[in-house]
């Protein structure tokens, strides 16, 4: 007090101004902090809801891919908007192009049904390939060789059956059987090399991909080349895995023979992997080879048979691709389907039934792309971009799952001492509100701080 009285009025004024600005600064800080903490609270409760919603293990495998798809569509929408097009229009036309929605108009003899049949035709090899990958993956094997198994099986079926004059009734089952047999042998070879010589399946399947396509190319170019298309000569209509044109209403369509088989195969595989002894053994080897060996499971036999089964699916993908989706076997080039199917398998959570949904989604995107491009006027690669986005976000699914687990544990931990927590929370909220007042006058601030403490104490 003494000191203060000695100060000149100017100095006193200066000090008052300083104090005022100091208070203003504090107030601003408080507001900023409040906003931040509120934002934090909002984020916190949002994550709580998300974690609670997603932590039920039963639904995680379904919800997380859906979330990934949603996020990728949201992201791609931004990209499309930046082109000045409407994302909704893009998605709608994609669906229309794939046959899920009616198009504006159709060419002669075509309808929505034609598009759906085309979708089923492209979907079939994709699904078979994905199933092949899933089986191998369940047994802990990464079968990159689907594309190689496809071309070998497709070529073998074309040469053995497609160039003969068998009737459709004999030819089509034979094509399927050859697909299974050739694919299984090609797959088993990888499994055998893994077991016998300890060659990693990724290495051997990449090398075999190259070997198969080069051998097939050599034979095509030497003996079976079609001079116009520069591909192998087309197989006979009887051998192709499309039915005779069937009249449905006004349109006629060739239905893909393999489509129903692929769907059935997915269910059979699901049953096989979860309900049978052999499926149990494959999964056990995949999860822990050491424990499987300890349990008396023959690792070598299991690995070889898992790869044979995987290869058989790859072979079916091959015959349904080369003898249905495309006109004939092309030399020098592996089918992209063989690699896309790996992505499909992952998108489908490495589950046979998940693969059905994932294959449908990816096939929709690829088969609707051309129509989408022509209607909306954006490049058809947008469809591939969507696929890529979905895969990217799906790949984040593992991270999301781990994140949820960690959050859940933390939440359980904080819930454990929530009794103490809640009262502290009340106290802090009270004091927060009081702090705003505190900035007004110092005396009041002191009092209210006391109040806050009192109230906090009451809360406890």
């Amino acid at each position, binding site marked *: 007090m003494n000191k203060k009285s000695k100060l000149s009025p100017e100095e006193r004024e200066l000090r008052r101004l300083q104090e005022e600005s100091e208070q203003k600064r504090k107030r601003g800080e408080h507001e900023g902090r409040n906003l931040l903490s509120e934002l934090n609270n909002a984020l916190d409760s949002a994550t709580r809801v998300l974690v609670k919603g997603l932590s039920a293990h039963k639904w995680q495998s379904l919800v997380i891919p859906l979330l990934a798809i949603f996020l990728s569509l949201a992201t791609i929408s931004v990209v499309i908007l930046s082109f000045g097009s409407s994302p909704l229009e893009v998605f709608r036309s994609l669906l229309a192009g794939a046959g899920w929605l009616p198009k504006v108009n159709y060419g002669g003899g075509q309808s929505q049904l034609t598009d759906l049949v085309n979708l089923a035709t492209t979907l079939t090899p994709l699904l078979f390939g994905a199933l092949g990958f899933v089986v191998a993956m369940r047994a802990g094997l990464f079968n990159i060789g689907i594309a190689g198994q496809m071309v070998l099986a497709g070529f073998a079926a074309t040469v053995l059956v497609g160039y003969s004059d068998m009737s459709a009734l004999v030819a089509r089952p034979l094509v399927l059987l050859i697909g299974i047999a050739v694919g299984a042998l090609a797959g088993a070879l990888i499994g055998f090399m893994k077991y016998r010589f300890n060659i990693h399946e990724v290495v051997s399947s990449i090398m075999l991909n190259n070997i198969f396509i080069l051998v097939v190319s050599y034979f095509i170019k030497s003996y079976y080349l079609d001079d116009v298309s520069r591909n192998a000569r087309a197989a006979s209509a009887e051998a192709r895995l499309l039915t005779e044109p069937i009249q449905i209403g006004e349109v006629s369509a060739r239905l893909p023979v393999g489509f129903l088989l692929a769907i059935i195969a997915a269910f059979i595989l699901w049953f096989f992997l979860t*309900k*049978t*002894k*052999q499926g*149990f053994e494959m*999964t*056990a080897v995949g*999860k*822990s080879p*050491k*424990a*499987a*060996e*300890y*349990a*008396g*499971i*023959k690792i070598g036999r299991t690995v070889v048979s898992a790869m044979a089964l995987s290869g058989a699916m790859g072979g079916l993908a091959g015959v349904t691709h080369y003898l249905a989706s495309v006109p004939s076997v092309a030399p020098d080039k592996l089918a992209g389907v063989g690699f896309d199917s790996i992505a499909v398998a992952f998108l489908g959570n490495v589950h046979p039934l998940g693969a059905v949904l994932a294959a449908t989604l990816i096939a929709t995107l690829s088969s609707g792309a051309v129509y989408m491009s022509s209607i909306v006027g954006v490049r058809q690669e947008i469809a591939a971009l969507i696929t890529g986005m979905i895969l990217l976000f799906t790949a984040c699914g593992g991270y999301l799952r781990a994140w949820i687990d960690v959050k859940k*544990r933390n939440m*359980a*931990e904080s819930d*454990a*001492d929530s009794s103490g927590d809640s009262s502290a929370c009340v106290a802090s909220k009270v004091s927060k509100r009081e702090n705003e007042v505190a900035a007004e006058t110092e005396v009041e601030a002191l009092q209210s701080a006391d109040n806050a403490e009192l109230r906090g104490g009451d809360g406890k």
Partner: protein
Amino acid sequence: MPKKEQQHEILLEVKGVTKRFPGIVACDEINLEIRKGEIYALLGENGAGKSTLASMIFGLYQPDEGQIFIRGEEVQIDSPNEAVALDIGMVHQHFKLISNYSVTENIILGDEPKKRALGIFPYVDIKSAEAHIENLSQDYGLEVDPRAIISDLGVSTQQRVEILKMLYRDAELLIFDEPTAMLTPQEIESLLKVIKNLRDQGKTIIFITHKLDEVMEVCDRCAILVRGKLVDVSKIEDTNPREMAAKMVGRDIDFSAKRPAKTVGETVLEVQNLRVEDGTGFPRVNDVSFDVHAGEIFAVAGVSGSGQTELADAVAGLIKAKGGKVKLRGQDLAKLNVRKRSESGIAYIPEDRQSVGLILDFPLDQNLALKSYYQAPYCKTSLLKPQAFSEHANELIDGFDIRCARGAKTTVREMSGGNQQKAIVGREIDQDADLLIFVQPTRGLDIGAIMAIRERILDERDKGKAVLLISLELDEVMDLADTIGVMYAGQMLKVAPASELSTNKVGEYMMGVTDDE
């Protein structure tokens, strides 16, 4: 410790530290004062909160409540790096060394002395680090060659490398987390010498253990933890083992569950001149012969890596023997694979319960049928019968007190180590095999689970089963064995009735010391 009259400087103070984990309070308002230059024991059973407390001091966990003071200043230790900056070091129970690096490389890792050749090109100055480490090693009597490769070193030397690592970083406070768990009696003795030596050179040591005799031998003061609570701090001079034990367990328990064998029956397992080689042709098991009889526990003692694991694997059929014979009830097993051996009467509790004994991502019921899933009632014409799996699982869950959150469908990964082990033990005993092989059956388990499993082993013996027990814990071997075989460097150095061998004698054989009387 020489008595000093002056007030000791307090190096570390822990005030009201609490740490909660879901479901348990690991540390409950712990208060400690650790003085400079003393050896301070944290004594308690498994799960008493010793390691959690040490982990908080070393920055691996953060306390939920309470404060930590170093040299009188409050500190927040958020990571081990900060702990190191505060001159705190820790030797973990499992060493953190890169096995194909040299001692020096391991020690300087993360804190490499850098120099520039010609003032430009940076390189790691191994030479000066080596010299520095050599000096440290001599000063503290550690006898470690800084140029040796870790994989060539024994367990106790590796532990000294960990100690050097702390010293290299100028640690003042050294935390030892159960440092003697993996050592032989002789190695323990020399470690305790090293620890005393460190104290005499002015270092402060926190010594975590559950072994009373070690506390009595080296420590100055001792804090006893029971279920997360600090129950007692006392000077070693003022207390005795009996008193400490009573405080530690809260009751008198008899650790030696030993029951003498009733009647030893016929020979069940015959091992004759068994030889097992590793990939390079080096003999892991070399000319080993012994018999195990019905109603007998044959315990194999030996330091880690003496060939015990390979011996068990070879008997169970997981690895192929290069020579010799293994016979079960007179039947030669050579031509039988793992499954056939299991069917003919071998149950096997493997050393690595998580990657060998169980499939962690499988539910409990499937794991409990891992050896029999292919037979009726679990499997009929290749189709699995889920009902049979869960019925069988529920029986074992009750019978063996396996605690699992979601019953038979619990994923084994979610279960605690003790319950995982109970599941394996339950599954194997349930096979009703003539021969039971236990490898390290109680490693890392808490006292309750240890007692339960030892009890089971004795029960099976009393039922007339032959038991082959392989353990690195000498106490366990001494407590349970009827006959002891000691392995050293792949050879069975000594086989004798347990009554004829003292703990020290077994310890000597474990180190390869034989006196040909």
